[in-house]
């Protein structure tokens, strides 16, 4: 049974990194959708997509985390809600929905190749490390106040 000590997270891959977002802020998982580019904004903004008649700004996780896109990835959009607004995070592939005891994730911030400020914690899944992303920090420079 879930309790306050259980972490629910959506696990996905961005380039070579296995990442996670807290399930509490994930609203939906969408397939990759054609995006309309927005001129003049940061490169990390993939553009606007049409989600059943509503416009969604999608941020490219590969650019945000400086990861190379893998050819075999189909691509997906993780729809998250940050500060009352909804954004899409473009990822390589969504892997899993995870429930893990909170003590099994450790606060660790020194992963090679990842800005430590973007890492909330590190956990283990199938003998592989995953990074619990600090989505607020990740998006903040891009989406503004």
């Amino acid at each position, binding site marked *: 049974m879930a309790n306050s000590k259980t972490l629910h997270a959506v696990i996905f891959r961005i380039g070579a990194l296995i990442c996670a977002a807290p399930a509490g802020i994930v609203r939906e998982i969408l397939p990759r959708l054609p995006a*309309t580019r927005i001129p003049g*904004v940061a490169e990390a903004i993939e553009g606007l997509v049409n989600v059943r008649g509503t416009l969604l*700004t999608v941020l490219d996780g590969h650019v945000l985390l400086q990861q190379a896109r893998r050819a075999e990835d189909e691509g997906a959009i993780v729809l998250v809600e940050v500060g009352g607004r909804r954004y899409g995070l473009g990822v390589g592939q969504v892997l899993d929905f995870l429930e893990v005891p909170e003590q099994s994730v450790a606060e660790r911030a020194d992963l090679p190749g990842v800005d430590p400020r973007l890492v909330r914690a590190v956990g283990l899944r199938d003998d592989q490390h995953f990074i619990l992303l600090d989505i607020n920090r990740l998006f903040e420079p891009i989406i*503004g106040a």
Partner: protein
Amino acid sequence: MDVSKYAALFLTESREHLSVCNQLLLEWEREPSATRQVGGLFRAIHTIKGMGATMGYTGVADLAHRLENLLDALRQRTVPPGPAVFQLLFRSVDALSASVEGAVVGAEPPSDLKLAEDLATAAAGIEAAARGGTSAVRARRNGGMAAEAGRVRPVQVALRRDALMRGARAALVVQRAESLGIVSALRPPLARFDSHDFDGRFSFRLASGASDEQVLDTLKGAGDVDAVRFEEDGVAATVGHSRQIRVDLGRLDALMKQVGELVVAKNRLGVIASAASDPALSEVSDRIARLVSGMQGEVIAARMTPVGEVLERFPRLVRDLARDLDKRIRFDVEGDEIELDRSILDEIGQPLLHLIRNAADHGIETPMQRAAAGKPEEGRILLSASRERNYVALRLSDDGRGVDREAILAKARREGVVEPGAAALSDDLLLRVLARPGFSTAEAVSGVSGRGVGVDVVVTRVRALGGTIEVRSELGRGTTFTIRVPLTLAIVRALLASAAGERYAVPLAYVAETVEFDPRSVTVLRDREALLVRDQVIPTVHLRELVRNQPRPAPPRAPTVILEIGDRRAALVVDALMGQQDIVVEPFDAPRGLPPFVGGATILADGSPALILDAAALV
């Protein structure tokens, strides 16, 4: 009876009545010898009292009652209304307004004992001074009516179908009729007014010397009266029958949203039908397109509201500002009958408020300064609305001191807003400088404005509405801000243009014409490329360069859209034009650094998102 569900209606109606009160008070204060206003004030306050009592808002009813006492005393004209009385009346209307707003959310403010005492003192003072006179007037009035009650006429009253508290309202109508003479043969009887099947229609006979118009006025003053008929020998004379109902704005919003989606679906169907080359499908697609257009027009028309609804609160505001600032300001409103979409109207109030406060605080000088400058002591602020093509222009002008460009330029140079070498500040640049967040030229921060918030908020809000703003200012002569907003927010007719493989929508409201780019007509205007179109030199903007930083292809015969806002123009050179489409402006969470020429976004007929170009940023 559970009346809580009527709270929203109570609030709407009370706000209308309070707004009327403010207008009447302003008029009356300007001309204290006038007699018209006190009656209107009394009726409005009386209606609020009645509604408040029925809703169980005792604070509202009590305050209205006290105010009514003073108004009644004033109505007898035994004491001339003076400045102190006007101030007390304004204060009471404000307090009543706060009480109304608080009551509907279950937080009636505590009684203002000082105000209650002041009202009582004012009313008692007047009564004490003229006790004999007042009762004499009363006796004469009632007696007079009774004596003249030679004419007996049948009266039929129908309350509005959406009237709340029909029974109470009907009783109020009867009570008002009794103030004119003798009421008899009331059907249904008073006791039935409270029953569930009372439909708001009733009749009686009235013996009174008052004219039909007087009776009509008096009865309608009870509020919610739809029609009054004086029926004689079976001939009905209907006066003032209204065919209107109140609709919750949320319903209209929902309807508009649905119609917006219908428009998108219609566009999509059109694309599918023309690709399928099936005559039956094309026919039904055309028919749906026509029906949707008609429906769209009707919904937009239903949402149109006179701008007066927003502007009417400003005269009171300017009066109070002038008092606080020790200035004399005459405020006029023109064109308050011009209509705008309700949602735009709701959004435009705040920006206008900022500009009005700025005009009163920074624009208009003190009477002494004005006299020294050879101007009339009373400053003037004019707010005018007018219709220009597919948008509405709201102009706020003052005859105050104007903007000191030298001072602003110096400050802008210091803050690095303009190039150090900039010699002069054009109107465009002036607006850009004023609109910088936190930019303020006020030496001292006054209570009214000058905190450096204002023009930037105004510009942001207006642009979010798809509108534009301009400023003209002359030192010593005054400043004029012109805000242009589209008539309706939700659905916009747009021209689709492409550049570097991307599609953009250009609102047709700002498109004057389309021409072909002719390299032989290229000229230079202030170091910028410009196009000569029928003797007019129009600066060019290449869309490809704008959105992709790609070099201009400058192909001969490239389609060129001439944009026009007021007297400013720009020639937008594009790769191709792809026809017109009704587009629905879709909200989206804009990322940081969104360039000013992106005015919004939409979903095109094929389902893909497209950005809307903001003409104001291009001209």
